[in-house]
């Protein structure tokens, strides 16, 4: 390209590029575009591709090329923007995708549940054999309260209102579940550690309270919310284990791709887990510490909520959904 023609090219195209940059930014901020706008954007995209190829050849490393790269990238993003239908996507996620994920996680779920059960048993045995080791799992204040014949949960409502307690509990549980999932990045070991630790804590708490005849009260406290809460922690652990497996035995072209695919898939399950944990937090804040609820009511609430969870995880809560295979 001669000096004159390159100057003429710049003189005619530069104002167009500037206008296209503004158009691209305007379209980026909008949710919808008309058919005419979409077709015009495609034409502009092709025109930009031609200009960029010319600029790369004639003016490599220049500001003009950098500007064109930027506008071209913006148009590329516009052209390849996936269609938006949030409501339908959420419906599909809850009705089909999550049940498929849960089906694919059956094996890790079994292993994680086994690990949790064994950890509970280990915690129980440990404290029954060496009661002094309870200091490893419980604070001094909690130990003193149990030794004086009172469960640490007894006066909880006198200190904190139920609503505040609920928010604190469900936010903490959501963080624990998210951590159990994310810790799978350490080849699953981080997840196993968290699951085992939670199991040990539960087992040791029961063994310790049993020594003072308070294990029944502890069960009474846990029953309404614990069934779902512990199941969710195991589910998050199973998702974390799958994450670790995706790194150990990559299913994609590379470890990174395999990890990313697994995260995108299992992450959807975390959304449901978080919602269920909000329910658990409300039960734990309003029902569990309230002595007005008898054992049988707690049992019914706990079991019913567990069935709600099961129905949500299998998709039955939203009616019959087409089965899709987990990828």
């Amino acid at each position, binding site marked *: 390209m001669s000096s004159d023609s390159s*100057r003429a090219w710049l*003189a005619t195209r*530069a104002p167009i590029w500037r206008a296209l940059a503004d158009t691209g930014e305007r379209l980026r901020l909008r949710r919808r575009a008309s058919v005419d706008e979409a077709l015009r954007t495609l034409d502009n995209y092709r025109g930009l591709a031609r200009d960029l190829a010319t600029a790369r050849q004639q003016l490599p490393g220049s500001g003009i090329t950098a500007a064109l790269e930027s506008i071209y990238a913006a148009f590329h993003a516009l052209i390849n923007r*996936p269609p938006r239908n949030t409501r339908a996507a959420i419906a599909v996620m809850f009705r089909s995708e999550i049940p498929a994920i849960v089906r694919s996680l059956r094996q890790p779920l079994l292993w994680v549940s086994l690990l949790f059960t064994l950890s509970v048993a280990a915690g129980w045995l440990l404290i029954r054999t060496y009661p002094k080791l309870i200091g490893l799992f419980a604070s001094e204040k909690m130990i003193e309260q149990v030794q004086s014949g009172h469960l640490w949960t007894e006066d909880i409502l006198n200190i904190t209102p139920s*609503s505040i307690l609920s928010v604190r509990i469900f936010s903490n549980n959501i963080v624990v579940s998210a951590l159990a999932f994310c810790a799978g990045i350490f080849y699953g070991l981080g997840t196993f550690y968290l699951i085992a630790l939670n199991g040990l804590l539960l087992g040791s708490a029961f063994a310790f309270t049993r020594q003072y005849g308070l294990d029944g009260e502890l069960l009474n406290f846990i029953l309404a919310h614990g069934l779902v809460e512990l199941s969710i922690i195991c589910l998050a652990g199973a998702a974390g284990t799958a994450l670790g497996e995706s790194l150990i035995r990559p299913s994609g072209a590379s470890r990174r791709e395999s990890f990313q695919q697994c995260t995108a898939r299992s992450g959807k399950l975390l959304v449901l887990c978080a919602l269920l944990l909000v329910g658990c937090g409300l039960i734990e804040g309003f029902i569990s510490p309230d002595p007005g609820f008898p054992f049988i009511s707690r049992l019914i609430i706990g079991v019913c909520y567990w069935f709600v969870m099961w129905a949500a995880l299998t998709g039955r809560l939203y009616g019959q959904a087409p089965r899709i295979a987990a990828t």
Partner: protein
Amino acid sequence: MADATQPQPADPDRYVISSATGVDVVVTLAGTGSRSYAFVIDWHIRLLTALAWFLCTALLINGRIALRGLAPSKTYVFVALLPAIAIYFLYHPILEIAMRGRTPGKRMAGVRLIARGGGAPSAGALLMRNVFRLVDSMPAFYVVGLIGTLISSQHLRIGDLAAGTLLIFDQDRNVKSLTQLGAFAAHSKLDAAALDLLNDVLARWNELDASNRRDLATTLLLRLDAQAKELPLATLTEEAVKSRLLALLSSGAAKP
């Protein structure tokens, strides 16, 4: 023979995305420095906003600004404390989703998030990226995340790996400089490369160091303006040098 219309692959900080037109999209990956800079700005914004909210609402509820001795009433918790905590912890996910991969800090640092396909990341990907802050922030001060960005070829923290996102540089400045370029090209006698160089220098004039920009402008004048050798360039003021460059840009021949 290498195709000059395609980007050269040697630069490790460049990420190439295939396109249907056959002309690949090239973006420049942001490094640890830009990432940290954006984070520090965002951290200040969210901390100050959360603190301002907390102090103002605490003042309204209790009639005094105090962090201690406030009764844990429902109003205090739900109006003052929880929103402040939410502002601090939900700043990144909410703003990244609302601003499609940007935050005020990222905007100031000139960086933004994109998906590996080149588009804006989905809400799910951005949420996942933020969930993984739990790991990236371990054991303290984002040590895991920082190490990740230092050792990975694309400067990714674990959250980016999980979500399939990339932090790239925005090149808006170059786009803005196109405004004048068309008008200059229509009247100038300089070739496209010289036009681009002069336009770039003038666009960045205020950001350049005063002594450096004078030297740079003088060098450019000597190279591009035949009459410049006859001028006492050393005695010309900075403004005079700049206006001579402008004249050169708009006509191709500076006035004596």
